[in-house]
């Protein structure tokens, strides 16, 4: 039984070159991901798109069940803790989100169900598992998560502060605080739709500062990620040279 379970694990994991069963399984999942997205590019449903939905949902449900069943091999721990830990890994969460549309077949007709079908979009993230470059990006994001979190926190603080400031300065222009938050976000990201724009001199001055801060805030994460990415590539090259 254990060797059978081990074989199932080998098949569902990303394939080795000499394992044709695993390659065929990966190919089936990749096809299901790509074909499963086709109904989202169309308005309305037909019998064929419904059939595509049903087959892909069924494949992903089976895939999730098998991955859960073999998660003790994946996590390298032979206890119930492995199953619990596996459920909260990023890829397992993506897998779970992508099987939520199965609800539309189990409970037809309810409002939550029609919303759940939107979760089909998450299936595209399942492609990450099959891309080696994506694993580099994953490592990079893990390495610089503290710096990115710091930038995010700084940005949120600035958005909150400037929204409060402008909300007090221009009470006629901003009906709700959410409007002010929206304006602050659009200004700091330098998008500037212009649907809400300040009319007082002080308000315009705040907008100018927001735009300038925005340039720095947008540039910071790009720089952090690029530097870490270059480091990661150098490391990979170094490994091959050794």
């Amino acid at each position, binding site marked *: 039984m254990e060797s*059978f379970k081990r*074989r*199932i694990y080998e*098949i569902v994991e990303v394939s080795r070159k000499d*394992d*044709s*069963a695993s390659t*065929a*399984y990966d*190919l*089936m999942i990749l*096809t*299901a991901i*790509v*074909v499963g997205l*086709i*109904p989202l*590019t*169309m308005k309305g449903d*037909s019998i*064929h*798109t419904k*059939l*595509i939905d049903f*087959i*892909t949902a069924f*494949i992903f449900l089976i895939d999730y069940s098998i991955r859960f069943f073999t998660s003790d091999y994946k996590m390298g721990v032979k206890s119930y803790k492995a199953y619990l830990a596996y459920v909260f890994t990023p890829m397992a969460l993506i897998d779970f989100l992508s099987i939520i549309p199965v609800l539309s077949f189990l409970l037809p007709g309810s409002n939550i169900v029609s919303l759940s079908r939107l979760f089909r979009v998450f299936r595209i993230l399942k492609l990450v598992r099959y891309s080696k470059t994506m694993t580099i990006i994953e490592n990079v994001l893990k390495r610089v998560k503290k710096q990115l979190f710091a930038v995010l926190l700084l940005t949120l603080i600035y958005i909150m502060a400037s929204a409060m400031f402008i909300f007090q300065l221009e009470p006629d222009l901003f009906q709700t605080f959410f409007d002010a938050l929206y304006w602050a976000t659009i200004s700091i990201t330098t998008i500037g739709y212009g649907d809400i724009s300040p009319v007082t001199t002080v308000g315009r001055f705040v907008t100018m500062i927001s735009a300038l801060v925005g340039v720095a805030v947008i540039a910071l994460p790009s720089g952090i990620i690029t530097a870490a990415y270059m480091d990661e590539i150098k490391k990979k090259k170094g490994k091959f040279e050794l």
Partner: protein
Amino acid sequence: MASNYIGDNGVIEKKDIFGKVVIGISLFSIAILVMLATIVILYEM
């Protein structure tokens, strides 16, 4: 020993019947999905 065979390197290896079943199911599913995708793309888009 009926489920075993001698591999390329002379070692007795297990016959992977389960693997073959998986290949069959996978290829069948791929064929159905590609057929449906072709119908949708050609006639309904």
